[in-house]
């Protein structure tokens, strides 16, 4: 029974921390899910900063306790909102699934759990090089360790609840901007949930964090009108993504391009400042990784500059590589229904959606995803390509599907309206 209370207290710690933040928002009319998402983005950046400090976790914990008490009243007020209540229950349902089977996947056990354990047991950023794959970033593991350490019974699965919370927040953000009926919105939520839900990826993997953050950016890009606001949040989102997984450094490229081309004139001050800020963020990322490991490496020795150039110019294996890659891509596209629906809506888009910028942007991002993943696997050693494809391509494609969830939603919503 005590474990049941442990789950409840830990869940509420997450709900109270991220929901109904009054301290960041003056305007109380902002929709709840937008507030939640902004709280998540700001807090993840705060977590990142504290992850570099020795004893950062304990300072963070005491600060968060204060914030939780501040948020308590607003949280209770938000419960009256049906969507928010539904959101809380939806989270609880998925939390329960993780709790019943508290297992970790292969990479969860081998790579991400050791990083989380480092922080859980009082280690700091400098200690990360004592564990395997120190070239992998640590933010997801730090957040995991935080909620694991400050739970009642200190079971690691509690730390993974925050990934579920962020994922569901990104889905609820999509419907928060429309004025559909409750029935339609709930049906759309279910639909988006079922095309993007994979319990295995909550078993210590980090893919959902990147998927959710990319999804959040795309929603804000098309729904939010405040330009200055989006400038800062885009930078904050990019800053989080590159510290979750190494692939994040590549997968933020569409975000950067989408932001730049959002302006009427590409060569303007905003874009200049934006690119400069992105560069600073990237340089910091590379610098800190080099500090930890002595040198910066992208996925070990597979992606050194010399290796990349040599393999990309080696056309002797491109035929066989392409066949294998396409085979595994097709498997992924059926494994994750979001991809199947993406193809359907790219070929048969809703007339209204096709006429908008969204369709063209989605097409370009899709072509980018296809080419970048083909390139990533083409430059791998052909001898182990089959193994690498079978273990990694589905997760890489899953992360990129975050760019397309909003596009799928717009098509579904329009078809609903027209019918």
């Amino acid at each position, binding site marked *: *029974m005590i*474990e049941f209370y442990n789950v409840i207290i830990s869940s509420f710690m997450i709900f109270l921390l991220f929901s109904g933040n009054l301290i960041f928002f003056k305007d109380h009319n902002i929709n709840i899910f937008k507030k939640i998402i902004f709280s998540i983005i700001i807090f993840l950046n705060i977590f990142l900063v504290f992850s570099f400090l020795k004893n950062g976790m304990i300072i963070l914990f005491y600060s968060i306790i204060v914030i939780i008490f501040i948020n308590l009243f607003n949280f209770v007020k938000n419960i009256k909102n049906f969507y928010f209540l*539904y959101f809380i229950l939806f989270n609880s349902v998925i939390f*329960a699934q993780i*709790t019943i089977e508290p297992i970790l996947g292969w990479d969860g056990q*081998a790579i991400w759990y050791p990083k989380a354990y480092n922080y859980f047991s009082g280690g700091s950023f400098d200690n990360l090089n004592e564990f395997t794959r120190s070239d992998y970033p640590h933010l997801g593991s730090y957040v995991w360790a935080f909620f694991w350490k400050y739970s009642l019974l200190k079971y690691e699965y509690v730390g993974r609840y925050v990934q579920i919370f962020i994922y569901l927040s990104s889905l609820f953000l999509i419907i928060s901007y429309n004025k559909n009926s409750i029935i339609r919105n709930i049906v759309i939520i279910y639909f988006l949930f079922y095309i993007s839900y994979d319990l295995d990826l909550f078993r210590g993997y980090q893919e959902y964090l990147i998927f959710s953050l990319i999804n959040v950016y795309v929603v804000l890009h098309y729904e939010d009108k405040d330009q200055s606001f989006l400038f800062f949040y885009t930078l904050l989102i990019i800053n989080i993504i590159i510290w979750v997984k190494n692939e994040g450094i590549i997968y933020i490229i569409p975000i950067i391009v989408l932001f730049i081309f959002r302006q009427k004139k590409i060569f303007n001050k905003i874009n200049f400042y934006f690119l400069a800020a992105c560069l600073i963020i990237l340089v910091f990322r590379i610098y800190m990784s080099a500090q930890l490991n002595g040198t910066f490496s992208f996925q070990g020795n597979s992606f050194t500059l010399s290796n990349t150039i040599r393999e990309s110019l080696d056309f002797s294996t491109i035929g066989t590589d392409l066949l294998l890659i396409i085979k595994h891509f097709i498997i992924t596209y059926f494994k994750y229904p979001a991809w199947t629906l993406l193809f359907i809506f790219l070929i048969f888009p809703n007339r209204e959606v096709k006429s908008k910028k969204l369709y063209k942007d989605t097409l370009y991002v899709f072509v980018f995803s296809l080419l970048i993943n083909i390139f990533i696997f083409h430059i791998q050693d052909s001898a182990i390509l089959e193994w690498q494809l079978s273990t990694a391509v589905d997760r890489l494609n899953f992360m990129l599907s975050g760019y397309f969830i909003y596009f799928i939603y717009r098509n579904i919503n329009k078809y609903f309206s027209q019918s």
Partner: protein
Amino acid sequence: MLVLIKKKVDNKFIFKCILLLFLLIQSNFFLNIYTLIKHPFKDRMIANYGYCNNQGYGFIDQFKTKYNLSNNSKIINKNDFPSSYWFIDQFGEIKDYEYIIHIDSNELISNENILEQNFNCYIIKND
């Protein structure tokens, strides 16, 4: 009184309750809560990671404290599973290990240094 109840319990409210209940029932939420209360954490871990099979969580956890296996052991499991070192808060092989743990061994091990044996799992003191 009835009029008051009817006013409060209108169709929208009933429909919202149905939506909530659908979510809870369809996802086996109540069953999961029952399982959580009935089966403690250790039992659920053994059900998933195995006692003396799979990754041998149950066997390792049973003797983890008794022999202080953390940073002190070599785990041998010839089955295709991730390494079980993290069960004892150890994250890789070490050179000077005091104990050898066999998980789901295919062969019968006879060694005078066997400290514990359950089914085909062994803890052996390293000479």
